């Protein structure tokens, strides 16, 4: 496989023009990845993770709008692509998996109808029998027992985990190059979550599909992703290879996040937390969005921090990065 990135997002800005002001939900976000790579997009609620996903697919609803930037998918800019061409990419080359499996399947249509429809929407020459066979294979691929029986079921006859598997199977139907998974395991219990993660990882390895896994759960990303991008206030504050970032976080926010995860050697102690609350996107401070909660903040943080690469393979946005590896995480 070539080294050209499957997806290359450059300086993406998506703003929401509300009556209360402009909310910069995604502000100058850049990342890229190769075929078969899994990127974890991590951040707390309202940090712009999901909007980034929607912006890639061109599905930002008014009052939101992609203001500038490029989303290069195999060299083509999705933001300038005609609507009809973009529609053919959706569900075909780029698929999306949503958070709540209870809501993403049409309640009145049988699973086979919904799956066959997805195939036929992109290739009307496929016969119904072939489409059904592909649907059955996809259900088998995500570990659904007795796919033949299940094809004829309605969504309400499935449990939550099974429904999410169906949703993933539908995303896989056309063998996409890229899957955008928007917190797909958040609504599931932990055992099901583990199974889904396992299946997702296996699929990426086997089919060379790239995946953006949007989540707020660092533990999920740790086991799944190859690379990680941490978002805060609409910007990516730190990105790099998963183990590097988790073992040696450089940005104070990433350190804070990791410090809030309970671990074995902190048992019995008070859990560390980042002070304050996530800022409103309508009212971000000048310069670094994290300055109000950052232990290292000073006057230099009032100016917009540029993207720097203090360690090779790592990009961060901070004027006071933690470069000394011995500093205690969370301090």
């Amino acid at each position, binding site marked *: 496989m070539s080294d050209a990135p499957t997806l290359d997002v450059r300086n993406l800005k998506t703003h929401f023009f509300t009556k209360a002001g402009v909310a910069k939900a995604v502000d100058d976000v850049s990342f890229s990845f190769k075929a078969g790579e899994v990127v974890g997009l991590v951040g707390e609620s309202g940090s712009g993770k999901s909007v980034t996903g929607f912006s890639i*697919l061109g*599905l930002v609803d008014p009052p939101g709008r992609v203001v500038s930037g490029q989303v290069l998918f195999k060299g083509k800019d999705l933001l300038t692509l005609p609507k009809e061409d973009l*529609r*053919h*990419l*959706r*569900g*075909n080359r780029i*698929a*999306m998996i*949503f958070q*709540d499996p209870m*809501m*993403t*399947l*049409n*309640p*009145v*249509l049988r699973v086979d109808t919904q799956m066959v*429809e*997805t195939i036929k*929407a*992109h290739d009307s020459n496929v016969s119904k029998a072939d489409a059904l066979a592909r649907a059955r294979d996809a259900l088998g691929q995500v570990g659904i*027992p*007795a796919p*033949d*029986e299940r094809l004829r*079921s309605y969504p*309400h*006859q*499935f*449990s939550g985990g*099974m429904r999410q598997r169906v*949703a993933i199977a*539908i995303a896989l139907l056309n063998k996409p190059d890229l899957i955008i998974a928007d917190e797909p395991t958040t609504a599931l219990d932990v055992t099901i979550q583990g199974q889904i993660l396992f299946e997702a990882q296996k699929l990426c390895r086997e089919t060379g599909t790239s995946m953006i896994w949007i989540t707020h759960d660092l533990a999920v990303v740790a086991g799944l992703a190859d690379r990680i991008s941490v978002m805060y206030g609409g910007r990516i504050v730190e990105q790099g290879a998963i183990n590097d970032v988790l073992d040696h976080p450089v940005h104070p926010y990433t350190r804070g996040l990791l410090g809030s995860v309970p671990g074995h050697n902190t048992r019995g102690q008070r859990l560390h937390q980042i002070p304050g609350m996530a800022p409103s996107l309508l009212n971000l401070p000048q310069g670094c969005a994290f300055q109000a909660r950052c232990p290292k903040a000073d006057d230099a943080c009032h100016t917009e921090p540029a993207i720097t690469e203090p360690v090779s393979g790592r990009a961060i946005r901070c004027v006071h990065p933690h470069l000394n590896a011995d500093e205690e995480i969370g301090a």
Partner: protein
Amino acid sequence: MSETVKHDPNLAPVETPLHRFMSDFSDSMIAMAALAVLLVIVFIALFAPFISPTDPYDLAKVSIFDGKLPPGSVSMDGVTFWLGTDGAGRDLLSSMFYGLRISLGVGVMSGVIALCVGSSIGLIAAYYGGRVDTLIMRIVDIQLSFPAILVALILIAALGKGVDKVIIALVLVQWAYYARTVRGSALVERNKEYLEAATCLGLDNKRILFRHLLPNCLPPLIVVGTVQTAHAISLEATLSFLGVGLPITEPSLGLLIANGFEYMMSGRYWISFFPGIALLITIVSINLVGDQLRDVLNPRLQK
């Protein structure tokens, strides 16, 4: 493999929606009675030529000497007129059977067409939103601010007489109700995630509208459909009674009532009275069925 499937715990036997719907519907005795009456009426309308005692439009068999006979009279040929005869000597019961056929036919036909037209327009308004929505809904508002009978009268005056013209007029009067109903529920459904997911799957707008959005808007549509069909029947009867509806060659219940109206004051009540009762029973039974449908299909009233 297929043997183990039957014991899959996830596939516990579920009550199908249709089954639940039927058992909910049969909860009300009144609704069941109304449904039975409605089925009888539909049966009569469908098979009027076979079950009518006489053919009221066979001029060779109708005698003017049998005119205005009271109910229960026997004709010179020995035929019993259970509900009497009208001014021209036609058997009223047979005329009513045929009239029911025409009334129901026109009502249901215009109801179905209005449903298709109105719900498509309502779906488009809800799905595209913005200016399209505003334009369509203002037209609906304007139309609904006029009384239905007035709009229908104006349309008939413009279009002229005839069965097709009456159906067109009824459709033009009624599409707005369907459009408004469908738009309302489609606006709720539109924001649900499965539609967003459908967009993400790259389905085209036509598929999303009619395959995904419409079936989820059906429950309120069914209710409005029944009530509006009853409304269409009574509107057609009103137009025919006023003499601007169906032509005299297609005598609906409304025309029969109009026919007997001139004899009302001379004590020959039956010529208007019985078609009126038939119309009343038809409309009341459709409305009762519609009411029960509304209760069954309303998620807020679900037990």
